[in-house]
C-alpha cells in the first residue's frame, strides 16, 4: 500500500462557498496555514468524519495533500494552491480578502 502523505481537511463554507480548513481545535479557518496537519491516516479519517458531520456549516469536506511549512501547513498540489488564493485573472477571493 502507498505510504500515507500528510493531509488537511478542507471544504467550502455553506453560505459563501469560500474555501475553509479544519483546525486542530475544531474551527473552520479561511487560512490554510491554520489547518491541522494530519500525519496519521487513522486520525485523518476521524478528522474528515468530523468535518463531514458539520453539514450545516460546510459542504464537500475532503482530505487534501499538504506539507509542513514555516508558518503552518502548505498545499502541495497546484489546485490546492489556487484554492488558497482565488482566481488568477482578477484580484478576487482570498488573495485580497485575507490581506
Amino acid at each position: 500500500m502507498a505510504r500515507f502523505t500528510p493531509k488537511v481537511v478542507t471544504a467550502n463554507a455553506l453560505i459563501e462557498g469560500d474555501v475553509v480548513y479544519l483546525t486542530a481545535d475544531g474551527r473552520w479557518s479561511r487560512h490554510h496555514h491554520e489547518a491541522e496537519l494530519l500525519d496519521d491516516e487513522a486520525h485523518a479519517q476521524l478528522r474528515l468524519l468530523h468535518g463531514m458531520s458539520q453539514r450545516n456549516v460546510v459542504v464537500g469536506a475532503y482530505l487534501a495533500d499538504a506539507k509542513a511549512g514555516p508558518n503552518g501547513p502548505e498545499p502541495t498540489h497546484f489546485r490546492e494552491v489556487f484554492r488558497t488564493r482565488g482566481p488568477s485573472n482578477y484580484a478576487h477571493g482570498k488573495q485580497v480578502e485575507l490581506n
Partner: protein
Amino acid sequence: MYNYSEFDEAFVRARVAQFSHQVARRIDGSLSEDEFRPLRLMNGLYLQLHAYMLRVAIPYGTLNPNQMRQLAHIAETYDKGYGHFTTRQNIQFNWPKLSDVPAILSALADVGMHAIQTSGNCVRNVTADHFAGAAADEIEDPRPVAELLRQWSTDHPEFQFLPRKFKIAITGAPNDRAVTRAHDIGLRMVRNAAGEPGFEVIVGGGLGRTPMVGMTVREFLPKADLLPYVEAVLSVYNTLGRRDNKYKARIKITLHETGKEEITRQIEARFEELRPLFGGNDQKLLAEIEAAFAPPAFRNAPVDAYDAFHKADPVFRAWADTNLAAHRNDQYAIVTISLKAHGATPGDASADQMRLIADLAEKYGHSQLRISHEQNVILPHVHKGDLPAVHAALVQAGLGTANVGLISDIIACPGMDYCALATARSIPVAQQIATRFDELKLEHDIGPLKIKISGCINACGHHHVGHIGILGLDRAGVENYQITLGGDGSETAVIGEKTGPGFAYDEIVPAIERIIAAYLEHREAPEETFLEAYRRLGLAPFKAALYPAEGKRDAA
C-alpha cells in the same frame, strides 16, 4: 422577441418560490447537502472552487436591453461587478452567496429569465446561430423553432431524468455558426427540391472525452414534423441510453453502440407513433411564436456616413472589416462586440459594459441583442449609417477591439481559476496568447484563426473544433497543455488532431508562436487561411516546428 406568456411567468415564479424554500431549508439544516445538491443543480446553482456559481440561461442567445440591464444589476448587487458569457450562450455569475440566490432568481424572473435546466440530465438551453434573424445567408430565422423546443423541453415529465445531459443546437443558415455537428441533436435548415424549408437532423455529435462529429439521421425533415421527430430521438435515447456508466451515457455512444441504421429505424418507428398524437397543436403554437419573432421595422436611410468613415478612419476600418457581418438588408450590418480585449478574460463583461451595450441596442439596434457561443455580444440589426457612432461608443467603453475571428478572439472555459472539474487553467493562457500576438502586431496578417481552450477533458472550451485547440491537463501534479490542430466547428466539422506530447504552462505560448511561424512560412499566399494551409500540408510541418529537438534526434 418572444415575451413570457402568463403560463411561463407563473411557472418560473412558482419555481423561484419552491427553490427559495429549498434554500431556506438547506440553511436551517432540514436538508442535507446530498438532498439539496440535485435541487440546486436543477436550478443552475453549482459549487465551484472558490464560491457558488449560478448559470443563467439565455435561450438561443437572445436578450433584450432590459434583460441585459438586469444582468448588470445582478452582477453589481450580488456578484463582483461582472458576468461571464459561456460557450453555451449562457451567463455565469461566479460569486453569489447561497442566501442571495433566491433574490437573484426573483430578479431574473422580473425580466423573463431563469436558471432552470442549465444543469442536470435534461434538455439544456437550446443554442442557435448568433446571427439568427439577421444573417444574409439565412433561409429562415431558426429561433421560433428554438423557442418551441424550449417550451416543450422545459419541465418535460418524460425527459427530466435522461441518461445524461442533452444539448440541441439549431441554425437557419448553410454556414454553420452554431456547431450543430457537435451537439446531441443538431438541426440545420435546408431546402428540399421543391424549395420548401426543413431540417437536416444530425444526431450524436459531441466533444468531451469522446469527441465525435454527429451523423445525419434525416437528410430532410419537413419543418412541421420537427417537434415529434425530436421527441422521437429523445424517446429512443431515453430507452437505449446507458445509465450504468456516466462516460458512456451520451447519445453519441448510444448511436455507436446501436448502429446508425438501427437507431434511425427506431427513431422513425417512434416518430410514426408520436406524430399523430401532436394533433397540430405544435404547429398552432409555432405560428404564435413566429409572430413574436417578426423582423423589426428596418429604416430606409442613406449609408454615406459609413462609407465616409470607412474611407477616412483606419481604426474604424479595421474594426468594420473584422467585426461586421453581412445583414439580409444591405443597408444594415451585424455588429459583433468583442469581449476579447487583448489580455482580458474571454467572455467577461462588467456591469457598466452590459449597460452600455443595452443602451446601444436600444438606440441603434432595434432593441435586440445576442450572445454568441464564441463568447461575444452581437447587435444583430444596426443601420450602416449608425456604425460610426456605435463604434465610437464601444471604443470608449473598452469594447472596440477589432479582432473577431482572429487569433486573439479565443474561446476559453473558466478552467481552474473557477471550475471545480478543471485540471488546469485556461483563462491566463488565453490572456497571454492574446497579449503576445498583440505585441507582435501580427494578428491581422495571420488572418482568420480560431483558438479554443478547455481546462479539462469535458471540453467546454470546444478545443476539439479549434483550428488550434488547447487542452489543459494535470500531468503528475503539474499543468500540462496538449495541442490539437485542424479542428473545425463549421458545416465542414472535423475533430482536431493531437500533435504529440503536451507543453508546460510557461511553454504553451511559445509553442503557439512556433505553430504560427510555421504557418506564415508555409502558406502559399496571405489569402490561404491557417485551416486551409493545415488541410493542404497536414501535421508534419507544424509538428516539426513544435518539437524541433525531436527532429534533430531523428536526424542523428
